[in-house]
């Protein structure tokens, strides 16, 4: 289990992180969200022991993050970097060796990752000759080849085309299944929503919200419904509900935000009474909706 307890980090007069407390259980895929400059990368650097906190503590299974612990971690930083003249396979082997894996084992693992990430054609080519997307895949392999217990990925999907993004998604999903704890940050909300089981939204160095998606949604003040067709009686029924707000008309359907206390089953019964209903859909707010609302400061507080 990874635990951050009241972690703080300052750079001169700037407070980068303030009283950040997180608890990430083994095997969790954890999404770290926040705008640029929110403190996500600093949080990751504290987790990885690249930086030490000025206050509070960071622990992995109860132990401080030292050199031995770090050997069990993998890291894909936001800014990608490879030794341009080193060959792809050598690169993967090198980083595996740095994590203490014997040469014979790491070579087999490197070949496996090369195949998994469809890098076979480039295995013996210098990294500098690869496209940006392929370089990124090499870095993913470098971060994961030693089978880390904790893999930290800072913006892993940035710069990948849809095919490679899917490959990476599948790789991370496989690691998730195997029980690897994943900590990701990304601005690709739909990707992170698909992968992660828990989330934390950071802004200006502080945790603004955290929990599962269901927990984050639970703080949402309204229920959104989409009804079709949008007959006059249907719309009138919806508009009569106190606090109801028209959102949009899309083809034959109409979307409304209703107060959270609205009983949707009762509403559907009333709508059927006034007209013919072909579709009634209760729309859950997406992660992006929750994120934007939290950042606007008009919603969820830390769970």
């Amino acid at each position: 289990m990874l635990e951050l307890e009241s972690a703080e980090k300052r750079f001169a007069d700037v407070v980068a992180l303030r009283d950040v407390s997180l608890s990430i259980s083994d095997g969790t895929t954890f999404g770290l969200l926040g705008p640029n400059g929110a403190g996500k990368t600093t949080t990751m650097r504290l987790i990885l022991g690249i930086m030490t906190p000025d206050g509070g503590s960071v622990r992995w299974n109860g132990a401080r993050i030292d050199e031995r612990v770090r050997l069990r971690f993998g890291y894909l930083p936001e800014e990608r970097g490879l030794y341009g003249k080193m060959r792809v396979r050598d690169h993967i082997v090198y980083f595996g060796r740095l994590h203490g894996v014997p040469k014979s084992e790491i070579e087999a693992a490197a070949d496996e990752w090369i195949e998994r990430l469809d890098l076979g054609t480039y295995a013996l080519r210098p990294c500098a000759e690869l496209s940006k997307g392929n370089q990124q895949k090499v870095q993913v392999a470098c971060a994961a080849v030693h089978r880390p217990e904790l893999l930290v990925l800072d913006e892993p999907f940035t710069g990948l085309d849809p095919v490679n993004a899917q490959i990476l998604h599948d790789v991370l999903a496989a690691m998730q299944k195997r029980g690897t704890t994943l900590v990701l940050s990304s601005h690709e909300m739909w990707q992170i929503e698909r992968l992660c089981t828990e989330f934390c939204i950071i802004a200006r160095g502080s945790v603004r919200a955290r929990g599962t998606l269901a927990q984050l949604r639970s703080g949402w003040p309204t229920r959104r419904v989409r009804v079709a067709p949008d007959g006059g009686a249907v719309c009138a029924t919806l508009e009569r509900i106190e606090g109801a707000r028209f959102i949009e008309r899309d083809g034959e359907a109409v979307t409304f935000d209703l107060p959270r206390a609205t009983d949707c089953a009762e509403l559907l019964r009333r709508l059927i009474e006034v007209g013919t209903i072909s579709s009634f859909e209760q729309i859950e707010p997406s992660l992006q909706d929750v994120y934007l609302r939290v950042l606007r400061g008009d919603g969820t507080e830390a769970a």
Partner: protein
Amino acid sequence: MQFGTIYNAELLRRLRSRAFVIGLIFGGLGVALVTRLPSLIESMQLGAIRSIAVAGPPSLVVPAKQLLHENGGFSVRIVPLSSVAPSQETLRRWHVGSLLLLSEKKQHLNVSIYTTDPENVTLSTIRGPLLPLDVSLRTHRPPTAVRRDLYFPITVHSVTARFVNAAQSAAAHAVAYLLLFLLYMLIVFNSQLVLTSVAEEKTSRVAEVLVATVNLPTLLAAKILASTTLAALQMATWIVIGGLLSSSGTGATGPALAVGSTSFSAVTLETLVGFLVFFALGFSQMSVIFAGAGSLVNRTEDLGAVSGPLFIPVIVAFMLAIMTLANPEAPFAVVCSFVPVLSPFVMFARIAVSSVPLGQVLGACAIDLACVILFAIAGGRLYRLGMLLYGRAPSWPQIVRAAFTR
């Protein structure tokens, strides 16, 4: 295991680098040049200056040619007698620096010298070798017999503790000169490699993954040891080149011969140990400073701006060391041999050409070692600051604060 992995990768990466290969070739050429340059210069100078033409009656020029060659070390050619005084152009056409016109006047040898180098071709340098010929004219005895009668042995004894004779002293100076040049080249070239390597990792953003995996002292130590190994490899290559060149003499004489053919054979154990110890100390001092500086670079284009000022103390140290060779016990030399950064060069120069008290040598080593530790701490802190600082260069107050605070 991490140390070994980084060390191996670093070594291989640099061995294959263009900079290393170019450095090895140009360094070798530099050593070759330094090994041969004094010989070449002297032989070129001697070719002109120590070549003499003689003109006059055959009874005089033939024995004079032999005496000037054997007693004066001149290369002598006989030219036809002319009534016109020779010009500089005439001497150049004959490939000589001077012309001696010989004649007999009242049973004495009469010599007129026309020379392009009056400082070296003087009355004494000519009178000595030709003295037997003059005595021969007065006594009517063959010049060879006169020469035999005039010979008396002279032995030069050095009163300095280190060298028993002037030849050994000249050879030691030649060795010191060569090794100082090697020391300078090795420190400058390999410190530059450390700087470039660190800057490359920083600018290519590999650094962040490295520091997430490896602790900084291990990373820095592995890099520096790999550089030291490369430096040793270069040193061995250059010494072999120098040794091969010096073993194939040029026929030069005097100091040139000392540099050209006896220098490498004249390396004493004392000099060799001094060279290795002060190379290790000097290189360690500079490489940690360069590693710290390299971590502050955000673009490889900025490398020159960073490395330029750092090389100034090395150049000053090298120049002071060259001055020290002329006077190893001068107060400035003694003081500088205890000043960090200058010390590896100046103290080594003193060791190579004089007898430095052991206490002084150990004192300088202790100061240098303490500085290596201090520089490593400060350089390591800079490295830690710089490796994760992107976007803008750190300010001087930041650098100073990073170097001097935990």
